[in-house]
């Protein structure tokens, strides 16, 4: 309610057909800048570690870094779904371990083929989400309580499923190949070309359709810059990966899920309703949106992605053991998206933040390992970074509030 707004000036004849520079700047500051800020942060982190240890930016280490972040990144993709509706899922770590254990036991001990075992693992995650989503919506218990309790239950279930041995080693090549396949040079370049071409074509086609229909468009120059940056990043990444072992399948799986969920959240009614529920559940309810259904589905997607991440982690480790899904996995999976601009308070963020956040956190932990820092120092630094990320989120929110936004 800013009294004296100039907005009561006589109605203009036609609304602006193009986004005004000021509006664009604002969106840049609040939307794209969140991503840009994170990319800058990644650059700073990389430079710092590189100056401390010149192996940090070597092709081998960067390939390792990408492999290290796939499991966390996949879990984070699911966490974004729950963060968008303004909730939290503290069970993703335990759920990922339990789902991976289900897969491993079915495959190794029960003799199931790889594909059905993997599907059963993912389905385990889906059912975990269904149960937690149901409890959360049916009894209106805060989601952190439901999922914290769930976390203990799934940890227990993990131990139970693994049995006396406590470890199940994976040997089925279909499962272990998920995290251990690298594509040759040619395949890498072909994939890069296809990805860049598809991106450029869809962006430009959408721009043309919008321009023809006479609705708001972003300046073509900005789109071209974005396409150029995207192509540059892809080419550099493929070049680096090719000079080591090649493009890893695991990274492609992560990128595939990120792109898929990005499209779901931004292009479909379901995605629109996720943001609406996160922005104002009451407004969404009054608009006729099935808020309960949206919430339950968000939790189901979250736990399903936790299962996918757990399976990738197991594939990389070649085993599922009692500490699967434990240690920092949960915190890193939630902190990643928040570091990269997805709000803990709901309604703001994007699936890209899962990828960017996992890269930030993965880089820090990879770099600290490379420097062989003591565990005590590593824990404190990781904790400090996570805290800083949450503070940035909270400050951004109070700034928006000062502006009258939520």
């Amino acid at each position, binding site marked *: *309610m*800013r*009294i*004296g*707004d100039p*907005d*009561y*000036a006589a*109605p*203009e004849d*036609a*609304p*602006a057909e193009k*986004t*005004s520079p000021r*509006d664009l700047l*604002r969106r840049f500051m609040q939307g794209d800048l969140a991503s840009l800020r994170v990319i800058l942060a990644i650059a700073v982190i990389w430079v710092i570690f590189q100056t401390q240890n010149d192996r940090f930016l070597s092709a081998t280490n960067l390939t390792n870094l990408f492999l290290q972040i796939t499991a966390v990144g996949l879990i984070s993709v699911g966490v974004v779904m729950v963060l968008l509706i303004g909730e939290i899922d503290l069970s993703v770590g335990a759920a990922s371990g339990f789902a991976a254990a289900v897969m491993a036991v079915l495959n190794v001990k029960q003799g199931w083929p790889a594909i059905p075992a993997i599907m059963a693992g993912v389905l385990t995650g889906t059912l975990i989400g269904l149960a937690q989503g149901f409890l959360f919506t049916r009894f209106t218990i805060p989601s952190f309580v439901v999922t914290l309790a769930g976390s203990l239950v799934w940890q227990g279930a993990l131990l139970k499923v693994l049995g006396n041995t406590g470890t199940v080693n994976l040997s089925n090549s279909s499962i272990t190949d998920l995290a251990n396949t690298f594509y040759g040079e040619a395949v890498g370049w072909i994939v890069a070309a296809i990805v860049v071409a598809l991106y450029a074509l869809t962006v430009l086609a959408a721009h043309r*359709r*919008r321009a023809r*229909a*006479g*609705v*708001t468009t972003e300046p073509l120059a900005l789109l071209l810059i974005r396409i150029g940056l995207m192509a540059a990043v892809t080419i550099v990444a493929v070049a680096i990966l090719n000079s080591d072992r090649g493009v890893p399948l695991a990274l492609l799986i992560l990128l595939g899920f990120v792109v898929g969920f990005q499209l779901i959240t931004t*292009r*479909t*009614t*379901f995605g*629109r*309703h996720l*943001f*609406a529920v*996160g*922005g*104002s559940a*009451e*407004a*969404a309810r*009054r*608009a*006729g*949106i*099935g808020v309960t*259904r*949206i919430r339950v589905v968000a939790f189901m997607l979250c736990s399903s992605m936790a299962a996918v991440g757990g399976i990738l982690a197991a594939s990389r480790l070649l085993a599922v053991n009692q500490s699967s899904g434990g240690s920092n996995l949960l915190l890193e999976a939630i902190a990643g998206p928040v570091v990269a601009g997805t709000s803990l308070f709901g*309604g*703001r963020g994007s699936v890209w933040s899962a990828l960017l956040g996992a890269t930030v956190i993965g880089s820090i932990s990879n770099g600290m390992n490379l420097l062989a820092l003591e565990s005590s120092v590593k824990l404190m630094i990781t904790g400090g970074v996570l805290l800083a990320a949450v503070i940035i989120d909270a400050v951004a929110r109070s700034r*928006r509030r000062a*502006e*009258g*936004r*939520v």
Partner: protein
Amino acid sequence: MNANGAILSTKGICKSFGPVQALDGVDFDVHRGEVVALVGDNGAGKSTLIKAVAGIYSIDSGEFFFEGRPVKIGGPNDATGLGIATVYQDLALCDNLDVVANLFLGQETVLGGPGRAGRVLDEIVMEQRSHELLDQLSVTIPSVRSEVGTLSGGQRQQVAVARSLLGEPKVVILDEPTAALGVPQTKQVLALIKRLRERDLGVIVISHNLANVFEVADRISVLRLGRNSGTYDAAETSEEQIVGAITGAELGEPTSETGEHR
């Protein structure tokens, strides 16, 4: 009841909450192309009446007539189905979404026909229709892609009103549309109310601000302690008369009487 040609009428509406008689035999009507202000002191029953009409509250006794026909309003969907749209004071907008998303929230246009959640949004059609609608209403906002949270109070109110019009209603109810607005924004909203009248809608406005009421209303219906306290022709009534009817002080006669004043 069709004699007076009202699009929406209530007759003898009673509603109590436990021992409190919130509405006691309230008659009320609104015609096409007419703005009726509903005024009264706090607790006079204005909001209760509106919520009864909108289907939020079920009434104890009384009748509703829509376009002369007796109708039952058992829930919000009944009211919406008849063509009664309500804009509540808290607006119920999602501040994190842009204007287009808010206008179409819950009734998004999708590619390949209307459908369930998960369908792909047709942003172009929604944006074009948003432009059309806002142009018709002469609503000025920086861009239909502005986040609603960045808009001023008056702009938010106008977006909420515009959204209520997407369902092609015949009656629009506005609950305190100018409360908490600055002077220029109040002007905008009052101008919008006049444009709703030009679109031949029946408009019901709840307001505490008598200056605003006199600026837009054709008729003023006063409630006092859950009963009718007279209906006045805005052009022939002074503010003192309305204040008298609100407070119960005897000051002049209603120009057109209803209820127990008959």
